[in-house]
């Protein structure tokens, strides 16, 4: 068995012993992308509404069902447009991911999620009402006519059904009862749902019938979106996995229920990754190849080695501790904006709870020299303090301070008084927070009240 050390040895005393990086950092986020992206989203929304408006004439509003059919087109087209934005958000376009981080993208995806689905359901209902009024028939009767009489409407109806199911299982209360894999498989059908509904939009939409230009533009925009998804969700991870050829060389217990997986690979000196980032890992064994899980890199790459650290909280992480050396590993990423690029100020304070220490450990290694990091680590028991010696060394070499807060959650907590005492100048520092969701939420709120502006607070939460 190889013994790889990710430890920073406290080399010759007196010298600055911050070790050199052995691989490049991830590219810095480009701030100008944000306003441009927001402007583009708005532009698309306006154009979509414009398409609906120009397809109508005032007289149509006077005709029976006219208002309903117009509203139906509007909700349908705007709903499809928002669905497109949702797909783009989750496609992890690198320039945007660097800016928001994967959890930022997922956050927006969740917040926006209810809109396209409700608009598209409203579209189906309103259009049917409109046609029923126009044809002067009953609503129930018209449902049959609309679904079976129009071209591509049967598949579009199936698509809407899939979409509603996928939306329902994403409601927090229901999602928490499902395994991650079940949810993911159901959620994946959203892509199918969108593909199925595409044809009826083009064939029946008043904005597209008889308007070849709009048809082309709409189709091209969707084709481009599909291309973005295929490139960034499929091709890029495959290319990266093949380039780095990672395989497991060692499973090392770090603490009760915590193991590090040490992988070796080729060309890791070219892997652009920053401390604090994570990958989605796919271990290519019989039972695990089909699921990818996000785990933090717990140290900067030491070519040819890479280390991730996993806490045993579920079936997958338990299986990780039983991985055999030699297992091939596919990766997606690196992801996350919880990096040195987020730092705006000279100095920083890093706060971690539980297994949050893993991301914090690699971030600490990557912080610039002048950061003088104050590191606060919270754990319930002494033996849960993972990487204790590594963190101590890193803090020392960067002329920072380490505070370990050990004890039961209700007794030893990170509250206002503790923070004021340990970090009197917190208002002038960047604050990095990493840990379980509720911990991160609490600390974000707390430092907000302590006067740290929003742009200086960076966090990464682990959802278990």
């Amino acid at each position, binding site marked *: 068995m190889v013994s790889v050390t990710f430890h920073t040895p406290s080399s010759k005393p007196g010298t600055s012993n911050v070790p050199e990086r052995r691989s490049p950092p991830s590219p810095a986020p480009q701030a100008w992308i944000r*306003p441009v992206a*927001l*402007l*583009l*989203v*708005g*532009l*698309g*929304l*306006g*154009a*979509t*509404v*414009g*398409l609906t*408006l*120009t*397809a*109508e*004439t*005032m*007289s*149509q*509003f*006077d*005709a*029976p*069902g*006219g208002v309903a*059919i*117009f509203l139906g087109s509007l909700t349908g087209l705007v709903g499809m447009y928002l669905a497109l934005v949702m797909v783009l958000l989750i496609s992890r376009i690198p320039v945007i991911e660097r800016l928001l981080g994967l959890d930022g993208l997922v956050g927006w995806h969740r917040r926006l999620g209810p809109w396209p689905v409700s608009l598209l359901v409203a579209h189906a209902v309103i259009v049917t009402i*409109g*046609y029923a*009024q*126009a*044809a002067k028939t009953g609503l129930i009767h018209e449902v049959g006519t609309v679904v079976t*009489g*129009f*071209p591509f409407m049967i598949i579009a109806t199936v698509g809407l059904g899939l979409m509603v199911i996928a939306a329902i299982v994403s409601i927090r209360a229901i999602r928490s009862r499902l395994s991650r894999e079940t949810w993911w498989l159901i959620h994946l059908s959203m892509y199918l749902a969108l593909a199925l509904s595409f044809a009826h939009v083009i064939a029946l939409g*008043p904005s597209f*019938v*008889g*308007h070849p230009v*709009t048809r082309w533009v709409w189709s091209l925009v969707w084709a481009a979106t599909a291309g973005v998804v295929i490139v960034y969700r499929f091709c890029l991870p495959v290319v990266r996995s093949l380039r780095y050829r990672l395989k497991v060389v060692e499973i090392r217990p770090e603490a009760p229920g915590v193991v590090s997986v040490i992988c070796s690979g080729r060309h890791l000196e070219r892997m652009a990754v920053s401390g604090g980032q994570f990958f989605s890992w796919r271990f290519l064994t019989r039972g695990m190849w089909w699921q990818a899980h996000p785990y933090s890199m717990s140290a900067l790459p030491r070519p040819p080695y890479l280390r991730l650290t996993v806490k045993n909280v579920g079936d997958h992480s338990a299986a990780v501790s039983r991985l055999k050396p030699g297992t091939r590993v596919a990766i997606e990423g690196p992801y996350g904006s919880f990096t040195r690029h987020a730092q705006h100020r000279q100095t920083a304070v890093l706060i971690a709870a539980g297994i949050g220490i893993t991301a914090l450990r690699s971030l600490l290694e990557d912080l610039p020299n002048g950061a003088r990091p104050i590191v606060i680590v919270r754990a319930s028991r002494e033996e849960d303090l993972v990487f204790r010696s590594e963190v101590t060394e890193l803090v020392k070499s960067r002329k920072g301070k380490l505070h370990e807060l050990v004890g039961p959650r209700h007794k030893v907590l990170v509250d206002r008084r503790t923070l004021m005492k340990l970090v009197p100048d917190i208002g002038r520092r960047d604050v990095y927070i990493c840990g379980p969701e509720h911990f991160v939420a609490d600390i974000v709120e707390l430092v907000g009240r302590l006067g740290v502006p929003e742009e200086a607070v960076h966090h990464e939460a682990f959802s278990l």
Partner: protein
Amino acid sequence: MRRLSLIVVGAVAGLAAVVGLHPTSSTANALGTGGQAAGGRGTTNPTTTTPPTTTPPTTAPAAPATPTPAAPSTTAPAAVARSSTGPAQQYGYGTLSVKVTVTGNRITKITTPTLQTAEQYSQQLAAQVIPMLNAEVLKAQSLNINGISGASYTASAYVTSLQAALKNLNFP
């Protein structure tokens, strides 16, 4: 909120661009404003798609003589029934032409000699809508009718063709 204002600015620009660039489809306007606007359009460029295909006043009833009583049952002085077919109009979902019969100064009969649609639904829709349009025109005795929503393309093609046919007959 800077984010929101950027989105709003983008949306307004996008909306303006589409509304500005997108000429409202030429036939759609003919409808609703009724005969008047349609008449105006007719004078400049009567039918965009095809030149008037059918013969001018086809004196409908086979009788060669001029005053043929069209409705012998009525006690009113007999009027001549004349008919004309408007040019075939292509609309997004198919092609149609309208044949109108005018007796005296009344529209008495409307048919659609040409009706081809792209697919079955449009056929159904046309079959449903054209009788409604016929009834409306016969009732209004003009093109001042409401469109049928959900069938605006069919209806505007109908109106354009009918308008040309009526013009052939010098119907007011």
